[in-house]
C-alpha cells in the first residue's frame, strides 16, 4: 500500500509529446518522495514516459494496463 499522497493527472486523448510534457510539469510541482499517477491512452506514452522517467532519475513504481488505458505510478526522487 502507498502511504504517500498521490496526485493524479489524466492525459487520455492527448498525443505525444503532450503526455510527457504534462507529466514533466506535474512532477515539477510535487515534493520529493511524492507519487504521481498518470493515466494515458496514447500507445506511444508507454515508451515515452518510461524513458523520460529513467532519464530524469525518478522512479517508475509501476505500469498497469487496462484495455487501452495505461496507468503509471512515478515517485519523485529529486
Amino acid at each position, binding site marked *: 500500500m502507498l502511504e504517500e499522497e498521490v496526485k493524479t493527472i489524466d492525459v487520455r*486523448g*492527448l*498525443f*505525444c*509529446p*503532450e503526455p*510527457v*510534457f504534462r507529466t*514533466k510539469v506535474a512532477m515539477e510541482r510535487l515534493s520529493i518522495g511524492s507519487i504521481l499517477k498518470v493515466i494515458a491512452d496514447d500507445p506511444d506514452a508507454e515508451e*515515452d514516459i518510461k*524513458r*523520460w522517467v529513467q*532519464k*530524469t532519475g525518478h522512479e517508475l513504481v509501476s505500469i498497469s494496463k487496462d484495455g487501452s488505458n495505461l496507468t503509471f505510478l512515478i515517485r519523485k526522487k529529486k
Partner: protein
Amino acid sequence: MITLSPELLNKIGNTPIVELSSFSSSKVKVYAKLEWFNPFGSVKDRAAYWMLKDAERKGLINRGKHIIIEPTSGNTGIALSGIARLLGYKVEIVIPEKASEETKSILRALGADVHETSDDLCPRVGVGTDQSISLAKAIAKARPDKYFMPNQYENDANFLAHYEGTGPEIYKQTDGKVTHFVSGVGTGGTITGVGMYLKEKDSKIKIIAVQPQKQHLIQGLRNFEESNVPSLFERRMYIVDEWYTITNEESFTMVKELYSRERLLVGPSSGCVMAAVCKLVDKIDEGIVVTIFADDGRKFKSLYTQQGVFTSNEFDHALRNATMLSDSLLII
C-alpha cells in the same frame, strides 16, 4: 502584465523607409525599411495580424473562445502575444527552454502562457524548435475546438501580409523606382510577398535572397543547406533571382558599421541582409536598392557583448545615441 492600448492595432505597417547615405553613391541609392516601428517591435507584427484576421474571416476562431498557440522562439511569439491579446484571445507560446530569458520575460509580460520544451520529451521529433512545433501541434490536435495554431511556416496569410502591405508600401515610398529588393528568408513570407508584388509591377525588378552561413547565430533567418524549406517559401521561391550567403562575422561587423556610419542600432538579421546589400552594390552600376531591417538591436545586448560586437558600455552608449529608435513598449 503590461497594459496595451487598442490603438496599437492601427499602427501595424506603414513603417518608415530611410536612405543609408553612407552606403549610397551618386548612381546607386540604398534604402532600408525600418520594421521595428511596428508596435511590437518587428516585421512579424504584420504576419501575426494578417494570420489572425484571416482566421477570423474564415470563421476558424472566435474571440473569447479560442486560444492561439504557436511554436516560436522569437519575434512571432512576441507579435502574436500582443496582437492576439488585443483582439481578445488567450495566447500560449511553445518555446525551447534554451531560448533567451529576455524573450521569455517579454512573452510573459505580454500575458502569454509560456510552455518550455526540452529535448528529452520526444526524441522521435528532433531537437530545439522541432520539440516545440511537435508539442504545439499535439496540443492543438487534441482540442481542435479550443486551440488554433496559425503556423507561420505554412499559412498563406503570412505571404499576403507582405503582398498587400509591405510590397505596395515599398513601391510607393520609392515612387516606383525600386530596382533591387534584398531580404533575408525565415518563413519566406516577406521575400515572396514583397517580391511577387514588385515583379507584378515591373518584372525587371530583381529579388535577392539572403541566407546566413550554416550553424549561424542569426535569429529569424534560415540556412537552407541545414534547414528545411518551409512550404510557404517553396510555393513561390521561383521569384528569387539571386542568393547571397553571409557569415556570422560579416553580419556582426555590419551591425557595428551600421551604428558607426548611420547611428542605427539594428538586430543581427539586419546586419546579415546589409552585408549582402554591400556585395550587391559593388556589382551594379546604378539602381535603387531597398532592404528590410526586421528588428532593432535592443533585445540583443547579451548576444552582442558575447560576440564582441559591442562591450556592455558601448552597447548602452549606442542605445542612448542611436537614431530612429521607436518608442517601443518592450524595453527589457
